[in-house]
């Protein structure tokens, strides 16, 4: 056996390269006009972005901002779809709209393939992951996920008010992805810190954000080395051994994909479970109907994903161009709001309402085109099982204190504090 020496000095050097990017002036504080000065990092957006998006769709469907070094926010389904499909003019080199743009040389691979990759590389990086995430592959995890949900509910016993985001929703995707990657399940609390660093606080100084990302990559390196010494049947060993075009993957590709799976796998699903429970806690008629008709849950779940789509992506404009009325400059951000597209009345009837038996629901919560969420089948399984178990065990519940509910700020949105009365 040859020693795998990819995870020594090379690993450090590629991380170092990532810090060579463009920085811009950080602008924070109240938004003066959402059409010309939007920011997804302000508390008003986190608390309730939908009225802002609905108003923009009417008044200025491709809004602009000078913040974050310049960016655009389309709110019509049609425009969001066109950008998701147009990888020739819009790059995924960066997908978190912040005050730092990674260097152009990072394309077409990017820091966390495949989400940060452009064609033609993207296809190969994505193909590596697909088999582990098909509907039948993730079905094998359903029984263990269900048992884990029951354990979490058992632990709520004896309390009148519980925090459904902190004590239930968050743990489910953490446990599942830790198992798939082969990480110790008790590291969950550390994952939460990594996620907050990656996805929230986008207006912190880039140096601070890079230093925090370093901690995640140090953690991943420990896991990678442990897997090199003790190979296992999990995604980490799979990625260490995987080959593209006859070569093992670059060390930064291995670590970047692991970081992606850890972060994309947890925060998103946690948000979807939390938002669904929040809706049911504040809408007794929908809750009662789902308790009485559990077979409606798969349909209702798609509606929760539409109405409370947790994930917004970003793109970078490749070259200066005039696009649908906007003078876009190279490296301008596009804040690609799948949530706004999902509430466009031109695409959905009663777009602003939650209709739990909606039969025609071509929502885009998992994106469109080549970057369609690799984890969508896994996320759907987790969301369905989490809601089934909760509704079966705790059919009667309500919001304990609507004003105490808090929502994550940034591009992944869901409840982070969710006090629910269960007793």
């Amino acid at each position, binding site marked *: 056996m040859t020693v795998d020496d990819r995870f020594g000095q090379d690993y450090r050097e590629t991380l170092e390269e990532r810090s060579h990017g463009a920085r811009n002036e950080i602008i924070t504080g109240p938004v003066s006009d959402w059409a010309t000065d939007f920011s997804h990092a302000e508390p008003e957006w986190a608390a309730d972005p939908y009225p802002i998006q609905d108003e923009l769709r009417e008044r200025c469907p491709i809004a602009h901002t000078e913040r974050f070094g310049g960016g655009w926010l389309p709110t019509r389904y049609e425009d969001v779809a066109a950008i998701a499909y147009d990888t020739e003019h819009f790059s995924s080199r960066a997908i978190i709209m912040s005050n730092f743009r990674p260097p152009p040389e990072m394309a077409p691979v990017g820091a966390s393939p495949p989400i940060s990759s452009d064609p033609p590389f993207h296809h190969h990086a994505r*193909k590596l992951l*697909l*088999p582990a*995430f*098909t*509907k*039948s592959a993730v079905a094998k995890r359903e029984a263990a996920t269900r048992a884990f949900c029951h354990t979490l509910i058992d632990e709520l016993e004896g309390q009148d008010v519980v925090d459904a985001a902190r004590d239930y929703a968050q743990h489910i995707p953490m446990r599942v992805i830790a198992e798939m990657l082969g990480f110790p399940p008790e590291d969950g609390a550390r994952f939460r810190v990594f996620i907050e660093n990656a996805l929230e606080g986008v207006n912190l100084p880039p140096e601070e954000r890079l230093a925090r990302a370093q901690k995640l990559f140090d953690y991943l390196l420990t896991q990678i080395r442990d897997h090199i010494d003790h190979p296992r049947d999990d995604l980490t060993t799979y990625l260490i051994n995987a080959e593209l075009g006859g070569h093992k993957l670059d060390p930064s590709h291995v670590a970047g994909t692991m970081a992606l799976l850890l972060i994309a796998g947890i925060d998103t699903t946690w948000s979807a479970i939390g938002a669904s429970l929040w809706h049911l806690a504040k809408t007794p008629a929908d809750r009662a109907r789902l308790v009485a008709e559990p077979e409606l849950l*798969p349909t209702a779940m*798609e509606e929760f994903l539409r109405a409370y789509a947790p994930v917004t992506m970003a793109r970078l404009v490749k070259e200066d161009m005039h696009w649908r009325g906007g003078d876009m400059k190279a490296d301008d951000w596009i804040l690609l709001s799948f949530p706004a597209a999902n509430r466009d009345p031109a695409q959905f009837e009663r777009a602003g309402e939650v209709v739990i038996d909606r*039969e*025609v*629901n*071509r*929502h*885009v919560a*998992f994106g*469109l*085109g*080549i970057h*369609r969420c690799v984890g*969508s*089948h896994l996320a*759907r399984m987790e969301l369905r099982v989490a809601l089934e178990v909760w509704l079966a065990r705790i059919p009667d519940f309500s919001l304990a204190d609507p004003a105490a509910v808090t929502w994550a700020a940034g591009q992944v949105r869901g409840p982070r504090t969710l006090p629910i009365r269960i007793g």
Partner: protein
Amino acid sequence: MKVRISSERCQGHGRCYDLAPDLFGEDDEGYGQVVGEGVVPPDKERAAGLAVSNCPERAIEIL
């Protein structure tokens, strides 16, 4: 009635095989496939319609 999936457009969202498992299946990467020749028996026409109208990529055609 027959159904067909455009493999150019399909991205493997799997709404078709969720909603109409008798008519559609997944390949080993999760892309949708029609079962057999794609012939839709009369009692599956409603399910076929649901798959068409829920595919986010508009990849399913009714022939």
